[in-house]
């Protein structure tokens, strides 16, 4: 009962977490990704690009590019527009403009495993293979965001190719940050010189973020009161799965999501993705059989 009254008051005062009940505005832009796909790095890059006058840190990132899943309705309401908002949501039709960051799910799994240990969501000695099984079948806490393929798949199916949607691959961001950030600048309608891009990149480097995390980890809503022996900023590299993931785990990920991975340019090592032609033929057969 007391709990109920508290909830009512929190709601009335707008202290509830915004999340999917966020009041979306027509001039909002969202940075969306599955968790552990480079969202924080992208946030820093964009904040350093759009708000170049001030040093971006974990202490002010929630003001510059707030996280709708960590902040209250009231907090979100007070952010002046046009807002840039961080999100991990699977497709939400109310989001008018979306920059989506995708990452090889094999790397996402490895990174998420470490993150889940940091958050004490899984036992410290949980075998990686067992974790990956839950990750793929959607039985972990992470499945609140849908599975990896559901998250990226719903956005791509609904919005890919439209002028209000920009897809970035984490791997491309790492390989050529300058080029990718230039795309982002255009998406935001910002005229950035190569020098401005370089500065934003420098101010968002993994080493710099690691330093900031050490200093400000307890000041940031995402890392506050979490194990500090496992860092939030992980390896910041692509392809770590090759040396870390057991073969069976790779196979499980690829057999569940291979087609989506192949379409995003992630090479499969345990099976071949079907060509579109094979699939269309298979579908025609099914249709004829009336299935």
């Amino acid at each position: 009962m007391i709990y109920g009254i508290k909830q009512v008051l929190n709601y009335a005062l707008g202290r509830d977490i915004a999340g999917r009940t966020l009041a979306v505005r027509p001039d909002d832009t969202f940075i969306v990704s599955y968790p552990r796909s480079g969202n924080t790095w992208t946030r820093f890059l964009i904040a350093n690009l759009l708000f170049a006058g001030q040093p971006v840190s974990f202490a002010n990132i929630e003001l510059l590019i707030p996280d709708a899943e960590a902040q209250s309705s009231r907090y979100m309401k007070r952010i002046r527009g046009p807002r840039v908002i961080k999100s991990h949501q699977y497709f939400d039709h109310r989001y008018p403009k979306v920059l989506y960051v995708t990452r090889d799910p094999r790397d996402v799994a490895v990174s998420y495993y470490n993150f889940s240990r940091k958050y004490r969501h899984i036992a410290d000695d949980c075998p990686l293979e067992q974790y990956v099984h839950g990750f793929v079948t959607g039985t972990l806490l992470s499945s609140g965001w849908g599975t990896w393929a559901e998250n990226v798949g719903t956005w791509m199916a609904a919005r890919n190719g439209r002028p209000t949607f920009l897809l970035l691959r984490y791997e491309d961001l790492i390989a050529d940050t300058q080029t990718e950030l230039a795309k982002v600048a255009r998406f935001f309608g910002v005229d950035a010189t190569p020098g401005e891009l370089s500065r934003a990149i420098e101010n968002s480097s993994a080493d710099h973020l690691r330093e900031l995390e050490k200093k400000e980890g307890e000041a940031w809503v995402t890392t506050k009161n979490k194990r500090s022996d496992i860092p939030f900023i992980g390896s910041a590299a692509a392809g770590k799965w090759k040396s870390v993931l057991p073969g069976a785990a790779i196979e499980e990920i690829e057999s569940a999501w291979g087609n989506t991975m192949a379409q995003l340019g992630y090479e499969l090592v345990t099976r071949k993705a079907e060509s579109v032609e094979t699939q269309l033929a298979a579908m025609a057969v099914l249709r004829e059989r009336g299935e």
Partner: protein
Amino acid sequence: MIQRLIHGTRRALGLHHPGRNLEVWPDDVFILSFPKSGNTWTRFLIANLMYPDTPADFSNINRLTPDPEASSKRELARMPRPRIIKSHQYFDPRYKRVIYVVRDPRDVALSQFHFYRKRGLLEDGYPPERFVPRFVAGETTPYGSWGENVAGWLATRQNRPGFLLLRYEDMLEDAARELNKVASFLEIPPDAERIANAVRRSAADEMRKLEKSQARLWSSTKGTRQDVPFVRAAKSGGWRTGLPEAAVAQLEAAWGHLMKHLGYELLFPARTTNFDSQFVETMLNGLSR
């Protein structure tokens, strides 16, 4: 603030309609479709199949197949399980057992146009060619655009366990055949007589009769114009005469690739601008067999 206090209290007591924030149970079954795609007919068919002793009508359909937009959170929590829930929501990963009904978007647009006249949202004489661009942009429902709704569900679930895709047009052609698929999906013995009875009880004429006497009892027709019926033509292809060509072209330009995938023949195949249809097509087929 006062408004949020009232709203918050209603929420705490479970008196609000949960809609998209419905608490989902693992054994819930969803009858899902974009609005105006034959959802009500499917609800009647399934209710009459599941509960042969209680003929479905507009006064009990929200109890037999609850609607999270029309029932309160408290009512929904007390329903006997497994619940058969009506929904128009775009993709929600928590829905694990889904019967998805899809209909030619050209007919959907036309049907929604008439439904909005019924609800007094559009004046008589409002031109369909002004309605269709809003329909394509996804501004006419809170459930995403037709393409967003359909593509989101198909890309994640088609050909996977726990998902049954029905085409409204196939249901019109042979309702018993399609209801048979539903029966095996729900693990109900596919008894021919039981299925035939359910089809008969849910026929458009029967539903029209019920609507005449019960329209004021049902959440979706209460307080709407009674001179425009809810159960309308119950046919496919009405768009050929009901929609201007320019509107048809616009619908096909936006969703031609999805329509082709679903077997809806295009009037202007050459004008279809596919938004990266290859990606969607590949995902649509899901797992390799």
